[in-house]
């Protein structure tokens, strides 16, 4: 693509072409912008899509520069400072009875400007990745700064946010191009980590895309252009990518997939190649696996290949809740089966080798059910990962609630951050006294149950020991007394 327009175009893979030429014929600057949020987890947050685009652009002859504002230091931390209001005061988000400080994570704008000024030559094109839909404001601010610095450069924005909310991105970012969906040419390419001065300690792998299921809270279908097709890379190519990254000293890999196991045998094939090559790796899949597909055989292969942890999408205890989310392929019975298989395969419960997600913060949720889920996971697994729900454009729940969220509440996308509890007032229809601090306390409870470790194992308050029984009995006596 050459030239730039004054108005923002929304383009897709079908309407967009990456130009090519002799080596260095154009300069592209790739940017992962800072993040405004109350919290940020730097682990596994590499801008993998942008780094695949880097590979593509290099192949097309571009000179590529990268500014990853979210690059971590040696300890894995991202710099953070206050996000400030226009008058300079620290930005605070007051939500019911809680107040959250809003941070600017990543390079400061001054440091970002300095990096822009330090480039060898101005770029012809600036490619920006924009990930979470509720982070769009920092993308907007990055674009303003880039436009000021490089007025002649064309600015392209891609990623999850523009894919899920292209009109919003078009109307708010002032980019030249909002790219919706996948850039097919880059989809299966390797991430280019050579652009980092210091090689990262880990790499993200995407070996397959697509999911046949359509859970009401999940955006995978929308991110795959409405398709339920599942596509996978050649396992040999995945292995080659791993070995290439091992040359940089990387031994930790995170699999980021829509549904890694639904294509039966695919992941296992990749892992068996790793085992056959006797690579000593630490593998992770922080987004979890479909429990129905986690067989003991696969889990043993995972363990042997270097998986350190297993993440299980428990989500909710009651099968009706799962059905209500159109999650027909998974329930607690299949979770139990996967958990038992994981334990037999050598993953230890109560040590964070096995972890389970519990979803909360959804509209119409039953808090009693969430608490039951928490206790169940506490007892069976010991490590609960709290997942506060964010209504993401493109999901069924978002579509159902868009009127409420935008028209009734008057919120924009940045307000829908799960951490800001977008369904707090909604859920007061069932729980009139519900406060924001109750959600915070629910999260606190999960964290405390995880951290309550003794001799490296999470204590089980629901086991048969006399201590736990006495604890429960004391709670019951208090309950009766209060009643």
């Amino acid at each position, binding site marked *: 693509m050459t030239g730039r327009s004054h108005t923002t175009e929304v383009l897709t893979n079908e309407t967009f072409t990456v130009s090519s030429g002799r080596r260095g014929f154009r300069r592209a600057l790739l940017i992962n912008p800072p993040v405004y949020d109350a919290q940020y987890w730097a682990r596994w947050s590499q801008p993998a899509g942008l780094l695949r685009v880097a590979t593509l652009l290099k192949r097309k002859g571009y000179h590529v520069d990268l500014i990853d504002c979210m690059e971590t230091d040696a300890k894995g931390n991202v710099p953070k400072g206050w996000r400030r209001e226009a008058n300079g005061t620290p930005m605070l988000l007051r939500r019911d009875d809680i107040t959250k400080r809003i941070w600017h994570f990543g390079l400061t704008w001054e440091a970002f400007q300095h990096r822009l000024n330090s480039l060898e030559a101005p770029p012809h094109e600036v490619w920006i990745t924009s990930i979470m839909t509720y982070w769009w404001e920092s993308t907007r601010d990055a674009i303003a700064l880039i436009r000021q610095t490089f007025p002649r450069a064309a600015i392209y924005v891609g990623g999850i946010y523009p894919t899920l909310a292209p009109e919003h991105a078009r109307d708010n970012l002032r980019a030249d191009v909002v790219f919706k969906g996948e850039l097919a040419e880059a989809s299966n390419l390797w991430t280019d980590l050579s652009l980092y001065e210091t090689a990262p300690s880990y790499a993200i792998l995407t070996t397959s895309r697509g999911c*046949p*299921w359509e859970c009401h809270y999940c955006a995978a279908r929308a991110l795959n252009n409405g398709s339920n*097709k*599942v*596509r996978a*890379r*050649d396992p040999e190519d995945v292995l080659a990518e791993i070995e290439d990254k091992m040359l940089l000293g990387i031994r930790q890999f995170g699999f980021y997939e829509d549904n890694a196991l*639904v*294509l039966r045998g695919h992941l296992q094939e990749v892992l068996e190649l790793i085992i056959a090559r006797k690579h000593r790796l630490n593998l992770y899949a922080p987004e979890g696996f479909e429990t*129905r597909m986690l067989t003991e055989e696969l889990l043993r292969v995972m363990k042997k290949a270097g998986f350190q942890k297993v993440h299980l999408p428990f989500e909710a*205890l*009651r*099968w009706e809740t799962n059905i209500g989310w159109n999650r*027909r*392929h998974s*329930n*607690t*019975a*299949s979770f*139990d*089966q996967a958990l038992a298989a994981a334990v037999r395969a050598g993953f230890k419960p109560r040590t964070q080798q096995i972890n389970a997600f519990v979803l909360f913060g959804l509209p119409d949720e039953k*808090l*009693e059910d969430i*608490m*039951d889920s928490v*206790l*169940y996971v*506490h*007892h069976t697994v010991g490590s609960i990962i709290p997942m506060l729900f964010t209504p993401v454009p493109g999901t069924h729940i978002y579509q159902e609630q868009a009127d409420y969220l935008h028209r009734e509440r008057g919120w924009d996308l940045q307000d829908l951050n799960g951490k800001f509890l977008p369904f707090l007032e909604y859920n007061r229809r069932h*729980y009139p006294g*519900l*406060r924001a*601090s109750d959600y915070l*306390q629910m*999260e*606190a*409870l999960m*964290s*405390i149950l995880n*951290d*309550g*470790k*003794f*001799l490296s194992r999470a*204590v089980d*308050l*629901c086991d048969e*020991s*006399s*201590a*736990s029984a*006495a*604890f429960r*009995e*004391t*709670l*019951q006596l*208090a*309950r009766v007394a*209060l009643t």
Partner: protein
Amino acid sequence: MLTDQNGLATLRTKDPEVKPILSAARHPEDLNPPDLLPEHGEQVLLIHPPVFDTRIHWPRWQQPLLLLELAAYCRTVGASAQLIDMLYHRSGVRLRRQRVSIIDLDGIKVNKWRFGLLKSALVNQLREMARSGYQPDKVYVECFTTFWWEGAAEVIDVVKERFPATQVILIGAYGSLAPEHARACTRADVIFSGAWPQIATLPTDLSLYEPHPSFAYISLGGAQRTAADIVDEIAWKHTHFQVQHFAFADSAIVERYANLYRSILELLVSRAVDVNFYALGNIAPSDLVAQPELAYLMRRAGYNQIFFSDDRNIAQNGYARAQLIEHYRLATDICIQAGFPARTQSLSASISLGRLGEDLAERASLATILAHHVGSVIFWPYQPSLSECPHIPLEEQNSKLFPLRNANGYLYRDYLNVMGLGAVLNSKYRTRTFDFLGDELIPRLFRDSIARHSWQPAEDVKGDLKLPMRVIPVVQR
């Protein structure tokens, strides 16, 4: 002062209830306490031995108070002192440990470690000293607690190998409480316990440490010292050694020295000495109920944390228990009003664990209730007296092994479970512990869920394993 609990500094010979005991292993005929003190012109070596134990709690709080007072005494009489503190380690550096054995506790295997400077390092250090012409006239070895005797025995052996003619004097609780054992199991020339009035009122000498520790114990010297003297010591240590953290070493400080303690706090406040204090088990909740103004003074004087004294001396009956809970409730209210933040572990209730005749369910229940009132709770493993477990080897009388467990009809695992409950009750989210007995919605939901036994749901709640299989529409590579 905490006595023999959790590896914290323990019984101090200056405590008035401890009767002087003088016991000579080699030359019993003409020794008396003053003869054992350093004398003018003498070279004195002070050694704090390594610790043999399954765990060592709060290693940086292990400071050999008696040795450091002896060091101060050396200055006053013109003797020269050198200190080898085998437990001393720089801040941020993990205390070195070596596994020495594996103990089987009712089927549970527990590692026993040797914590501290390596034996070979001590041997080398003494060799270097001897090579440079150093010949100590007296060597003092302080052993805090009876079940740590192995460290003292090891050190004394090493000293005796290098300096066979030097008089080795064992001081501290081990020799005091188990002199016969010490006589039989160590090569100390003298096993000494008792009060040295000459040193009781001296401030400890931290100058022998390099780098200087950030923590120091302060002793009231059996109330023989003045408040001004004590506050001067604190200010001096803060100014000259950059000591920031202090604890008073005296047990039951309010009960025994209320007036002096109050005067010290008032002076600290008026002089605005900017240091932090920690109460390590020498203040009872009832002290603050009886004298609530003390809590305000303590806070203003710089107290950061109060670990209340445990209930080992309180009768195991319902009335005493109810009174204890009420004292904790009131004391916590007072402390919070005085400015101690709630549920942040600035206040910790202490529960004795391991007494003869105890009911572990009662202990767990008490912990749950006290964690509700106070915010956090610590179990202090009960150290039985020698007479309570005469048939158990000294090193196995370690409170952390709960030596009376079988007599109580419990297994070691049962005690671990109670300690584990404490870990959950003290677990924090963003600096605050969770109140399982709180009135808010989430604790109520938690209790309701417990009542429903939700961790054991009926199978029909979980759903059917016969889940729909979906044909993958298109698969391409």
